[in-house]
C-alpha cells in the first residue's frame, strides 16, 4: 500500500492558535501543517504544553483556530461533527447512564430507534468485551473498563476518524498494553483513521504508522517519523532493534523539547 495513492482525510493548513491569558498572549500553535491520510494511524508526542490537545480540539471542532484551517473530507471544519469521534483521557462517560445507554447516546441523538441503537451498541460493547457489564453504571467499572466503554461509544456513531487525547494516560501499565493491543486489532478490522495523542514514546511507536514530534512554545511540528515496522505488532515488537532505534531517536527529540520547556 503505497501512501501516495491514499486520500488525504484531514488537512491541517497553517493552523495558529493564540490564547489570551492574564500574562498576555500565549501562542499555543503556530504554523502547523499536516496531512492525515485515510486509514492512517498517527501518534503525536511532545512535552506537556506543546499544544497537542489544542490541535486535537481544533480538529474535533471543539475549539477554533485563530488563523488557518482544518479541512476534513474536502470540507472546512466548523464545529463538531459525528464523522470525527473523540476519546478523552478522563473517559467522560455519563455517570447517570448504564454502559449500554452510554454507548447508545450518540445513536439516539441521530434519531435512531431504540432496538436499532441497541443492536449497534451491543456490537461495539462485544468488541470491547464488556458484554457482561451492559447494565452497570460507570462508577462500578475500573478505569480500563471505563475507557473501553468510551471507545465503544466513539465507534458506535461510526466516525471516519477517531481522535484520542491520551486515552490510556490514566491507566496502569498492564491495562495500558492490553488496551493498546485491542485498539490495534480494532483499527485493523474497522479501518478508521486514528489521531492519537500520547506522552509515552513506546506507546506511540507500537501503535502508529507515523509519529509526529511536536515542539513547545510555540507548538509546532518538529519532525515526522515513519514507523515501518509491520503489523500486527505485539509486546515482543518492543525488543527488536528497529523499535529500539526509533525509540532512542524519538525519545531524545522529545527530551530536548522537554528541556526547552523547563528553561
Amino acid at each position, binding site marked *: 500500500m503505497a501512501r501516495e495513492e491514499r486520500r488525504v482525510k484531514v488537512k491541517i493548513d497553517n493552523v495558529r492558535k493564540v490564547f489570551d491569558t492574564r500574562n498576555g498572549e500565549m501562542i499555543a500553535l503556530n504554523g502547523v501543517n499536516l496531512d492525515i491520510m485515510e486509514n492512517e494511524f498517527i501518534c503525536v508526542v511532545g512535552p506537556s504544553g506543546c499544544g497537542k490537545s489544542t490541535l486535537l480540539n481544533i480538529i*474535533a*471542532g*471543539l475549539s477554533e483556530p485563530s488563523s488557518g484551517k482544518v479541512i476534513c473530507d474536502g470540507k472546512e471544519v466548523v464545529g*463538531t*461533527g*459525528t464523522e*470525527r*469521534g*473523540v476519546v*478523552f483521557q*478522563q473517559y*467522560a*462517560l*455519563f*455517570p*447517570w*447512564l448504564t454502559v449500554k445507554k452510554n454507548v447508545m*447516546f*450518540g445513536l439516539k*441523538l*441521530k434519531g435512531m430507534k431504540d432496538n436499532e441503537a441497541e443492536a449497534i451498541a451491543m456490537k461495539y460493547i462485544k468488541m470491547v468485551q464488556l458484554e457482561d457489564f451492559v447494565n452497570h*453504571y*460507570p*462508577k462500578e467499572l475500573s478505569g480500563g473498563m471505563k475507557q473501553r466503554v*468510551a471507545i465503544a*461509544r466513539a465507534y458506535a*456513531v461510526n466516525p471516519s476518524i477517531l481522535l484520542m487525547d491520551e486515552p490510556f494516560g490514566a491507566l496502569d501499565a498492564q491495562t495500558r498494553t492490553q488496551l493498546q493491543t485491542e485498539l490495534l486489532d480494532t483499527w485493523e478490522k474497522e479501518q478508521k483513521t486514528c489521531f492519537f495523542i500520547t506522552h509515552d514514546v513506546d506507546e506511540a511507536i507500537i501503535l502508529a504508522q507515523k509519529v509526529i514530534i511536536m515542539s513547545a512554545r510555540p507548538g509546532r511540528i518538529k519532525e515526522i517519523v515513519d514507523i515501518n515496522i509491520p503489523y500486527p505488532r505485539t509486546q515482543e515488537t518492543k525488543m527488536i532493534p528497529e523499535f529500539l532505534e526509533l525509540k532512542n531517536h524519538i525519545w531524545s527529540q522529545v527530551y530536548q523539547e522537554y528541556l526547552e520547556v523547563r528553561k
Partner: protein
Amino acid sequence: MNKKKKGSSIPKWAWLLISFATAMCLWYLLSINPKTARSFPNLVETIKAISTMMERGVFWSDISSSLISVAAGFAIGFILSLPTAVLMAWYAPVRNIIEPWIQFIRNIPPLAYVPLVVISAGVGRRPQIIVITIATFLIMTVTIYQGVINVDETLIKAARVLGATDKDIFLKVIAPATLPFIITAVRLGSSTALTTLIAAESTGAIAGLGMRIRSLNNSFETPPMLLYIIIIGIIGMIFEKFVKFLERRFTGWQEKRDV
C-alpha cells in the same frame, strides 16, 4: 461501599430502638427535675394534650394550615428557583445582577422582614406563603446554580462530539448532571420552609403550628406546646425520608456518598 463499621453486628432497627429509649429516659429525667419540669411535662401529659387540642377543634386545622403554607411556599419557591438558577449559570449579566442580592437577602433572618410583608400582603395565608417562598427560593436558587456551573466540561464536550445540539446538551447532560444538586436543594428548601414557618405564622395567622405555640405561650400551657414542637420535628423527618427516597430512586448512579 464500606459497610464494615464498628457495631455492625447490631441491626439498624435495634439501634433505632436504643436511641429512642435513651431519648425517652432523658425526657423522663427532665420531667422529674424541678428546674426543667415546667418546660418538659412528661410523656403521658404530652400525649394527653392531643385530645385537649382536638377538643378545642384546632389540632387538625393547625397541622393542615401549616402544611398548606409550607407546601405552597415551597412549590412556588422551587418553580421560580429552577429557571433563575439556570439563567444565572448561563448568562453572565443575569448572574452579575442577581447574585449579590440573593447572597444579601439570604443572610437576613425571615423573622426580620415578616412585618414588612404583612403590611403589604395583609394577614392570613398570603404573607405566610410569600415569606416561605422567599426563603426557599433563595436557598434553592443558590444550590441549583452551584449544580449547573459544576457540570463537568468534558461531559459537555463528549456530548457535542457525539452530535448533541444545545437543546440536547441541556436536556441530556446538564439536567441529569444537576439532578443531585436539585435534590439537595429540595432537602434544604423543605427544611427551610419548615423553620421559616414559625416566622411566617408569627403575625396574624389564625391557625398553624407556629402560631399556636406562640399563643399557648401566653397561657403557659406547656404540654400542648411540647406536643406541637414534636409534631414539627416529625413533619421534618417525613420530608427528609421523602428526599432520601428521591435520592435513592434518581441519583443512585452517583460516585461515593454513604450517609
